[in-house]
């Protein structure tokens, strides 16, 4: 995971996604080919940092490497440009986590890998109170 997350650092730190140069659709995660019009003329584009919760769930049982964070909210967020991001929510009290709630992006520790304990960072979202 460590090399993989280094390679993807711009995606994970800056929410770097894709914009189609033909139809203007924007995507996160980035695409190789526009899902709207099929064009392969897609370029990197930083995503807006705010959006709204489409749906969410709370996890008590996690994947290995995420135990220390449990329980946590996982949400599907629609960014202001229409792109959708699957993300953890942090610093967000239960009563604020609702479908339709406004959220903003931040960067946090994502996971601690393996026995060497290398730390990976990445995007998470906070409910705007």
């Amino acid at each position, binding site marked *: 995971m460590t090399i993989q997350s280094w390679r*993807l650092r711009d995606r994970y730190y800056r929410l770097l996604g894709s914009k189609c140069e033909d139809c203007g659709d924007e995507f996160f995660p980035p695409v190789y080919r526009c*899902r709207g019009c099929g064009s392969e003329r897609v370029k990197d584009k930083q995503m807006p940092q705010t959006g709204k919760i489409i749906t969410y769930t709370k996890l008590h049982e996690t994947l290995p490497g995420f135990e220390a964070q449990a329980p946590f909210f996982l949400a599907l967020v629609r960014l202001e440009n229409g792109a959708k991001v*699957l993300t953890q929510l942090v610093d967000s009290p239960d009563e604020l986590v609702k479908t339709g709630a406004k959220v903003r992006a931040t960067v946090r520790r994502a996971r601690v890998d393996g026995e060497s304990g290398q730390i990976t960072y990445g995007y998470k979202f906070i409910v705007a109170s």
Partner: protein
Amino acid sequence: MAKSKVYIASAGLTKIGDHWGKSLPDLAVEASRMALKGAPRVKPQQILVGNMFSAIGAGQEHLGALLASALGLSGIPAFKVEAACSSGGSAFNLGYSLVKCGAIDSALVVGVEKMRDLEPEEVSQALSMAESAEYTQFVGATFAALNGLLARYYMEQMNVSRDELSSIPVIDHANAVTAEHAQFRKAITADVVSRSSMIADPLRLFDCAPVGDGAAAVLLVNEKAASGARKAMTEVLGGQVSTAEFSLYERDDMLDFKATRHAFRGAMQRAGLSPKKLDLLEVHDAFSVVGALSLEAMGFSKKGMGARDAKEGKYSRGSDLPINTFGGLKARGHPVGATGMYQIVEAHMQLTDRAGENQVEGARYAATQNIGGVDSTSAVHVFGRAS
């Protein structure tokens, strides 16, 4: 495609559950031997093994040659087919396609999975590999969590109640009581589902298929090889595998199970059969919400009505279209890479009057639907009583 008909000449399966004393090859060999013994004069010309996570689960890959060797069939081509939880259905589709197009006369298709050797978090990790490592595993999303997101969205968008969502697990458990190979042979009520422990809000323990070990196998033959078979056979009328945008967040409409919609339509068209003709349906209900959305994608329920229709008895035993006649994924069990093959063996049992107390009387046509990921892949097959 060539005109030859394709038949399931024989089948085998193990009970699903805790096979502490048996390894992954043990289970695959056990189910395969049962299938081979059912038609001893047929020699398979190819082996296809459906399996999802033998590497992480048993430290074993290269299952094709391993199984060929273990069965004394070395020499023939043999492959592992991996498509997450639709590995079994996908392996079957390849076997069926090869026999149908005349490349081979016969094929042994096996689905096998060994899940109970793993710790729960290791199972979660293995299952999460059905989704994007870079953007889904990265945020710590378990497979149950993705389905929890989907379940909340379904309930909120379609105004589906907790009791309605529980209805498919209730049908599964009712049907499993008399199913010998089922993992959980105990009836439950909607109340039991809604009071079970929370897994990924709003999904509870009884919304989710269990973890288990098992293997199921069939011997496929064309008309030429069928002369060597001796028992009642099932005809494979059609089948299709389809894929959709890989992850939920890549889809315009998360409630449209597009892979299943396309696979079902394609399979029925190839079979030349109207869906109204089906006498039973094995649905991939790894989570209650997935069962409901599958029934909607195949057109048996209107959008938002899958769970509601199930509650009203539309899919119960004795109805026009009973589903999951041996308990489905929830109660028969879901050894992921083997599940598609269990469904197919169950359809074969129904269409050859071998279903015992679970027999759908006079069943002539059956279909099976097997999903990988959250409907990222779907394998649908249609079967008929061989005339």
